[in-house]
């Protein structure tokens, strides 16, 4: 477990970092078709398909097409950040200033002694309704993150680097004739009929369970039947689709009332 120190003004808040996510993906291996034996990988020269040994391999940056600058391990080592426990805030911003495309992976921060300071900082961040942008180095890598609150606790979410985020500002929005006001009102009616609260517990990964059941059945030698894939018939005009949706919702409500 990594231990760090949040630097806030002249105060230092010691914290421990815990992963907040649990990977539940079903893990597959790559096999050779027919024999079902595991597949291995090696590096070869594409020209003569000759294998190259580990010791012969070098790493290079392609500076021009076909032209490489060899980068030695000792050189990459020197580019790595210095070991430090410090988590340095560069600024605080309103949560709306951080678009969802920045967030990558959450960690809980727990107090590492000095609990009063820890909970005081969490309360201050909550009261100010901000997220703290922070930089830190951990295990030879440099990170940028956002510190925010989750209940009484502090959370540190690893953010993507600026180079990794494509900005919507650079994209042209689809254009066309002005939208029809009546259709817009119908669409708004439909959206408001489907309004609700974000309740993540109400969504389950049903597919993961289905896939596991399917694998287990196959392991027992069964051939489970699967649904056929149908293609969708091409639809009516957007106005007809909206009108039918609203009518269906209305019928549903009347039934509930009756």
């Amino acid at each position, binding site marked *: 477990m990594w231990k760090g120190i949040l630097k806030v003004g002249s105060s230092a808040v010691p914290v421990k970092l815990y992963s907040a996510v649990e990977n539940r993906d079903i893990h597959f291996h790559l096999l050779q078709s027919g024999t079902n034996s595991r597949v291995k990988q090696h590096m070869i020269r594409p020209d003569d398909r000759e294998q190259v040994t580990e010791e012969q391999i070098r790493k290079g940056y392609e500076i021009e097409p076909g032209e490489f600058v060899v980068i030695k391990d000792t050189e990459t080592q020197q580019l790595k950040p210095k070991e430090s426990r410090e988590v340095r805030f560069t600024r605080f911003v309103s949560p709306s200033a951080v678009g969802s495309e920045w967030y990558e992976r959450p960690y809980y921060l727990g107090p590492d002694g000095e609990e009063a300071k820890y909970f005081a900082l969490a309360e201050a961040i909550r009261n100010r309704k901000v997220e703290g942008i922070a930089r830190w180095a951990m295990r030879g890598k440099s990170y940028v993150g956002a510190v925010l609150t989750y209940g009484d606790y502090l959370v540190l979410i690893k953010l*993507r680097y600026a180079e990794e985020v494509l900005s919507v500002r650079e994209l042209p929005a*689809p254009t066309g004739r002005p939208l029809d006001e009546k259709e817009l009102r119908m669409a708004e009616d439909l959206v408001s009929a489907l309004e609700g609260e*974000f309740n993540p517990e109400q969504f389950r990964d049903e597919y993961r369970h289905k896939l596991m059941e399917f694998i287990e059945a196959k392991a027992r030698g069964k051939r489970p039947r699967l649904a056929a894939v149908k293609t969708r018939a091409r639809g009516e005009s957007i106005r007809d689709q909206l009108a039918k949706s609203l009518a269906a919702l209305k019928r549903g409500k009347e039934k509930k009332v009756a």
Partner: protein
Amino acid sequence: MPRSSHGTNQHEEQEASVRPFWSGTITFGLVSIPVNLFPANRESRVALRMLGPEGEPLSREYYSSESGKDLESAETTRGYEVREGKYVTVSDEELERLSPEKSRDIDLRVFVKRDEISPLYFKRAYFLAPADKSGKAYRLLAETMERTGRAGIATFVMRGKEYLVAIFAERGILRAETLRFSDEIRTPRAVGLPEKRKEPPKAMVRRFESVIAKTTRKTLDLKEMRDEYSEGLLKLAKKKHLHHKDVVGIHPSKKRPENVVDLMEVLKRSLDRSGKKSKQAA
């Protein structure tokens, strides 16, 4: 999909990543809007290639652990290890047929306030582009979502995995953000965080608040979000190149390979084209 940063099939990978990542239909009520999904995140730019002794770029190949022979990807399949050395294989077709509707439709079941979704849930960002002359319906949904400040929530299946997803609009463009399922996020209790036993001293809270207030800004500063390691690596490579140090290359051709495409360009084209198409259709 796992991608090695030292991957050798760099060009192939770049080409693959600009095709739509997923194609399907957004549905809400009885309305359906065909869309293509493109990633809004990309790998950090500076990747190193593996080179042979003469500086020739190498490629990573699969080979059979039994015969030692090289394998094409068509000669491989995915298998789940049910017990040691015993695998159950699952084909792409089986993955799709397990849940055909969800593999095809993003069915928006509820529209929530955008800022109600905790940032802990966000996984990966995507852009949606209209497909099949769906430009008008696309713009209608985008306009409506932007006006109401709502995000549509759905689950759908992409490449053999189910995702919780939020769809919302920004500047006339529909975006998708995959979310973690609630059982993929650990609770503070499960992690073992201590309970807050007493209120922290008010003076201490106020001191922190005043430091925060002083360093609060309106926007992010992209200079603070830089990948310093990649920048350092690039600088080093340029410097060595300038001094002709450790520069290798077997077939230096000045022509850029045709299949290297900028993701941003593909997205621009994809959004632009759809707009024109809908004009013609209208």
